[in-house]
């Protein structure tokens, strides 16, 4: 108990100082407001300079914004059903949300990261983690759609994820919660020494981006919180922050805050990779889903995988070290040169920076302070590059501008602090509104940050926007960081609670954006490519409607011979081959969502008619001058009646 009081006192004292500081800053903000408006104004018809992909946290989605305008372009469903796009509702994308626990239509989406080549953003794919039921998703940046989801076995709370190495060799998925591996029925109080943490390295196929768990490192039962890859000289290493090195299982706010120093786990993944390639590691039986969406069949398949390679770090000398880092570090950030590893101790007011070159020297000199479960702990002084003293309260995350400056967010004192690498001096600080989490500089997790803007993501907004009941929007704040001092330019609301974002210059993605799917490449098993091929087929109680859409009609638009008790599949192909001309379809009483079908695409929804009658369907996406006329009817006869199955378009039914 004494400890808690001490800590509270520690926080209160500097809080006064920083609050005063914040007041001064907010005054200067209003003086700059006019210039700020010009800097974020993007004229009608003009395009933004950057894309920002902002995670949606508990919405399970990913929102795409333009910077500097803060305009919302698209919400990409990833770990969430989305009725707007039928994702997770239509037959084609339901398999995307399959897991070893069955259909899990939600997750907690945290950290997006964009693929890299030679340490620079290449704009091909974006990866994002599902925290709750551990998963990694891949989004194709030509279509802005989720095209692959891989479940992570032996993991729980997939938080230190999904960051990529500098040639996208690997995406990582580190477990936040340690668990029994393999899972078993055991007393929770026996956590210590028995629970384990897995760090998964998922290889990414350089050609098509296909993901595959190459190996899992089975680590001591700490909580693995965040991570970043090495780059430059430290390429080949990955760094993971830990907390709860106490290995407590209950009342963690107290019990996991006792050690003065936790660790950053430094993983030499090239060494582990060589070990595994040489036949090392153990094949472990398990069960996890691998879901892949194809742009050719316009459908996803879900495959259950039964095996994963696990490695014990003690079997690979020199592959894993622990870097002591004060005090429950959260963010783990590596500067663009790869030399500095910043561990933000969220219960510390100082920032601790480790030096990669010193780390290597300490390893060579075997400068160890003991070990944890056989993993060497390096001597703190030997690896420490410097400390930013009393920078703020509750440091969380650091990004870099590529000019030798670092920007750290402080959750408790609600501010962004700019400081200098090597001299460790604070240069500037700006308040945020309020309780800032992550910060994003486009290209932040690469060798080449585009240090023009920084985007702060805030957990709380209170008085910043019009109130919307008890739940107010979360927020992002845009700073101009091109000068010596940061300048607040813009607030804009976000979807869900934004955890992290990835930013990229628009010109790396926009020219490659897909305009429509070529109909001749459509390999969907139920696709029809011309109105002449449209038809209705009955197989027992299943009725398959092969339907097409084009401005402004469905083919067929009159269908008879459907009976109560049937299961009707609407397989709808959009015959359009024009940019930005999707068609939608919905059926009265269908227990699912509409479809939104892109040009050249086929999608399917099911309808189980429960009432006799003549029931309409219609186009849900305004498509043309005669959109309102784009509709049709299905006649539903009683179960067991002998109404002939028939269909037509533009003629009388015989």
């Amino acid at each position, binding site marked *: 108990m004494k400890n808690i009081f001490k800590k509270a006192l520690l926080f209160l004292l500097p809080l006064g100082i920083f609050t005063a500081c914040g007041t001064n800053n907010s005054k200067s903000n209003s003086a700059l407001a006019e210039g700020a408006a010009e800097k974020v104004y993007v004229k009608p018809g003009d395009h933004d300079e950057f894309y920002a992909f902002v995670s949606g946290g508990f919405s399970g989605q990913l929102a795409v914004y333009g910077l500097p305008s803060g305009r919302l372009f698209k919400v990409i469903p990833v770990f969430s059903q989305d009725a707007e796009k039928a994702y997770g509702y239509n037959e084609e994308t339901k398999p995307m949300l399959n897991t070893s626990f069955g259909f899990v239509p939600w997750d907690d989406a945290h950290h997006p990261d964009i693929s890299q080549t030679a340490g620079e953003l290449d704009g091909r794919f974006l990866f994002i983690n599902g925290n709750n039921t551990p998963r990694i998703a891949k989004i194709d940046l030509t279509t802005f759609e989720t095209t692959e989801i891989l479940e992570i076995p032996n993991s729980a709370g997939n938080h230190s994820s999904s960051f990529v190495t500098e040639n996208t060799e690997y995406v990582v998925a580190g477990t936040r919660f340690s668990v029994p591996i393999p899972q078993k029925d055991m007393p929770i109080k026996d956590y210590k020494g028995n629970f384990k943490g897995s760090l998964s390295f998922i290889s990414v196929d350089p050609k098509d981006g296909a993901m595959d768990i190459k190996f899992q490192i089975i680590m001591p039962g700490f909580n693995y919180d965040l991570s970043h890859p090495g780059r430059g000289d430290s390429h080949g290493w990955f760094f993971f922050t830990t907390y709860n090195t106490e290995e407590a299982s209950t009342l963690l706010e107290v019990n996991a805050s006792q050690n003065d120093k936790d660790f950053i786990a430094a993983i030499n993944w090239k060494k582990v990779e060589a070990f595994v390639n040489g036949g090392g590691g153990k094949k472990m039986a398990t069960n996890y889903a691998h879901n892949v969406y194809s742009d050719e069949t316009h459908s996803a398949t879900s495959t259950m995988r039964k095996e994963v390679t696990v490695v014990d770090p003690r079997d690979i000398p020199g592959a894993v070290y622990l870097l002591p880092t004060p005090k429950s570090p959260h963010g783990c950030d590596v500067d663009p040169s790869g030399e500095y590893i910043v561990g933000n101790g969220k219960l510390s007011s100082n920032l601790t920076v480790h030096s990669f070159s010193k780390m290597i020297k300490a390893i060579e000199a075997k400068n160890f302070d003991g070990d944890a479960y056989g993993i060497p702990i390096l001597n703190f002084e030997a690896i420490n590059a410097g400390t930013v003293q009393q920078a703020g309260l509750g440091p969380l995350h650091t990004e870099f501008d590529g000019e030798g400056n670092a920007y750290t967010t402080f959750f408790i004192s609600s501010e962004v602090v700019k400081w200098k690498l090597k001299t460790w001096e604070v240069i500037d600080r700006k308040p945020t509104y309020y309780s800032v989490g992550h910060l994003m500089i486009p290209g932040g997790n690469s060798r080449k940050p585009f240090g023009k803007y920084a985007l702060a993501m805030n957990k709380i907004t209170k008085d910043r926007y019009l109130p919307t009941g008890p739940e107010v929007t979360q927020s992002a704040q845009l700073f101009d960081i091109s000068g010596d001092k940061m300048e607040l330019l813009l607030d804009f609301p976000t979807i869900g609670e934004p955890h992290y974002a990835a930013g990229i210059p628009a010109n790396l993605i926009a020219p490659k954006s897909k305009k429509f799917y070529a109909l001749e490449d459509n390999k969907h098993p139920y696709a029809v490519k011309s109105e002449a091929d449209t038809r209705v087929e009955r197989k027992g109680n299943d009725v398959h409607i092969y339907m097409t859409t084009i401005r402004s009609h469905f083919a067929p638009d009159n269908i008879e011979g459907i009976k109560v008790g049937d299961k009707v599949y609407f397989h709808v192909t959009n015959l359009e081959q*024009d940019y930005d001309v999707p068609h939608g379809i919905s059926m009265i009483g269908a227990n699912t969502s509409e479809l939104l079908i892109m040009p050249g695409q086929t999608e399917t929804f099911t309808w189980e008619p429960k009432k006799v009658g003549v029931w309409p369907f219609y186009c849900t996406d305004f498509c043309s001058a005669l959109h309102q006329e784009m509709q049709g009817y299905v006649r539903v006869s009683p179960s067991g009646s002998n109404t002939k199955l028939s269909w037509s378009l533009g003629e009388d039914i015989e």
Partner: protein
Amino acid sequence: MKKSKILMFVGVLLLGSLFVLPLWNISLEAPQYPEAIGMNIHINKIADMNPSDIKNINIMNHYVGMKDIPEVLPEFKIFPYVIIAMMILGLIIAFKLNYKWYLAWFIVMCLLGTAGMYDFYLWEYDYGHTLRENAAIKFQNPDGTPLAYQPPLLGTKTILNFVAHSYPRSGAYLLFTGMLLSLIAFFQGKKGS
């Protein structure tokens, strides 16, 4: 070889470009189509300016009752033979006959070209005037006659929400150059004699 002969020879060869390059282009701009859509007219086919443009023009035009743009016209079967015949004739002239024939060849080309343009006009007229009775949208001129959707033969014209452009393309420019060369060859030959 004489300069006039070379000019005539090159001029005739330039006709061959018509088998590769488009002769004419009609494109349409509208607020909904900031990147214009259109078709390239070759001597033997009508082709998309950008992928699936003709399909999209047909989709739009069907609202006012216009026919689909045909993939092949009867003329497309004749035109290539005419060009081949004129090339063979031109080469015979270039190698075997004197400069006076160059002018004759040029005049025949002019006549054929004019006939071609007239044929093109007739097709455009039919395409723009022959509308289906049951068209969804029927626009009228101020005098009550049905609106016609004929694209311009040459130039730019506004049709409802579209601005239609009709201009020669690279194949036509090379054809004109070839014809011009035959004319220069004639004067060169005349000067030389």
